[in-house]
């Protein structure tokens, strides 16, 4: 299972890099979204994919899962939600002010 996850994460990262390289503003935003997904999957996979009940005393089960990675991923998801929200608004404002979504035109001059 870990091997499959590793391949999946690799694919996500390669798509991310491809999108980062594109000229389109919105694609770069999509790339940051995918990047955070890939990283979250990595965090879960690195801590071991386990099966079992949630570690609460009242539950009677043979195996319990480690709750910490899940808590970490949840936090990371919430953070990436916030970052994506602010990035979307910023990308939209940039598009409105500069009247272009082509990053080539947003390069800025060299002497600045």
């Amino acid at each position, binding site marked *: 299972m870990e091997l499959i996850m590793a391949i999946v994460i690799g694919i996500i990262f390669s798509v991310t890099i491809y999108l980062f390289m594109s000229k389109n503003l919105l694609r770069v935003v999509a790339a*940051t979204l995918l990047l955070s997904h890939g990283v979250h999957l990595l965090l879960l996979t690195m801590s071991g994919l386990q099966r079992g009940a949630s570690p609460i005393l009242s539950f009677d089960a043979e195996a319990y899962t480690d709750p910490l990675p899940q808590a970490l991923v949840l936090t990371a998801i919430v953070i990436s939600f916030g970052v994506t929200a602010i990035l979307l608004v910023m990308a939209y*404002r940039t598009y409105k002010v500069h009247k272009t979504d082509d990053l080539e035109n947003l390069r800025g001059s060299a002497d600045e």
Partner: protein
Amino acid sequence: MSNVIILPIVVPFIIGAILILLYKRHTIQRVISGITMLALLALSVFLAIYVYQHGTIVLEVGGWEAPFGIVIVADLLSTLMVLLSTLVGTVCMFFAFQTVAQDREKQFFYPLYLFLMIGVNGSFLTGDLFNLFVFFEVMLISSYGLIVHGGTAYQLRESFKYVIINIFASALFIVAIAWIYSITGTMNMAHIAERVAELDQKGALNIVAIMLFIVFASKGALFPLYFWLPKSYYGPPAAIAALFGGLLTKVGIYAIIRTFTLIFNHDIAFMHKGVIVTIAGITMIIGILGALAQSDFKRILSYLIISQVSFMVMGLGIFTPLAIAGAVYYITHHMIVEPALFLFAGAVQKITGTTDLKKMGGLLGTHPWLTWMFFITAISLAGIPPLSGFFSKFSLILAGFQEQQYVISAVALLVGLLTLITMMKIFSHTFWGKQKHSAEQAKISVGKLLLPILPLVALTIILGFGAEPIFNYSMEVAKDILNPTNYIESVLKE
């Protein structure tokens, strides 16, 4: 008692939430946030003194015992950093009262400002690696808000790049965290330090160490990850640029110092004396060359940040008590002087309407107070005795020679000299020469703007003349962080 150390994080949080409710009324926002910053300053002074007298305080958040829950740790280094950051925050806020336009103030300026303080203070105080990431993000998200605040075309264009770079660095941070968790099985920094000591730092752990170094270096603007800084710090108004110049890079430097004294301190010959010293040397040279090439007030200052932060990293790399004490002293000195210089840039901009050095001159004749206050700060940054910059550089270079690190010491001396040249360049262009601003502009009074900067100028003089007690304090801090068992024992209570 231990609950007190969470207050530098919780107070701005609650006040920030209240300010969101009052977002349409800018006067009341000003009053509340001004009082809050002063209260926080008093609180952080109290904390620093209390921790100095009584030793490290640990708070287990939610009553969950370490290493299972999140811990907030206030030791000498973190309380010093909280004190400095609150000082910078207070000064910049009082400067912002006079420079930030009213309609901008209504766009959640003060809530964002206070949330930035949460992130900065939280990063200094936390004892949990993932929590450090969370506070980094709180700081960064508010900094995204502040750096585009006002939304000019230039700001939007450069901030977009700033955000993308930081998102990438944050992703790398999570990857590093995932590695550490899979190797050590814990997120508590003291516990990680213990496990790393058992496992011996080699192989995968060294990779993780480098990865964390890259993440923090990109926040602290070290070579080769400094390129984003000058462009993005040019856009926002002076109060924000000063705040960022004083705080944000220092959070990265603090994280480097914390992780590489507490956790990854088992491979000093390679990591500290090899990698870190080399990077510090290159960053110094690149930063100062960038500053020499520029002819814009704010851009010179931005490049100077890059060359200045590497002095602190150099202290960490040399890794003796004297060097670390020098680095701590340097952080103190820099967090006072750099924001002051940015605020002077703001004051000059208010008079002349530009930050281009070629378009200004002769301010000495019309604004003597501004000129002489700037002069003191500038020569302090350049390291002229008896101001604070001299003693911080002196101890670092002395430690370098003691440890036979001749190359980095020579580079540091050279960079100190070149810093003086950049400062003189600003001084001669802006304050000497023919008056280039009009008679009306000469009448603009900046007395009110200089008032918030005055404490910073006074402090750099005090830090210079009263160097001995403050240096002794830095030595205490250095001994404390060079002896990680102290930190580990107070967190894990063994």
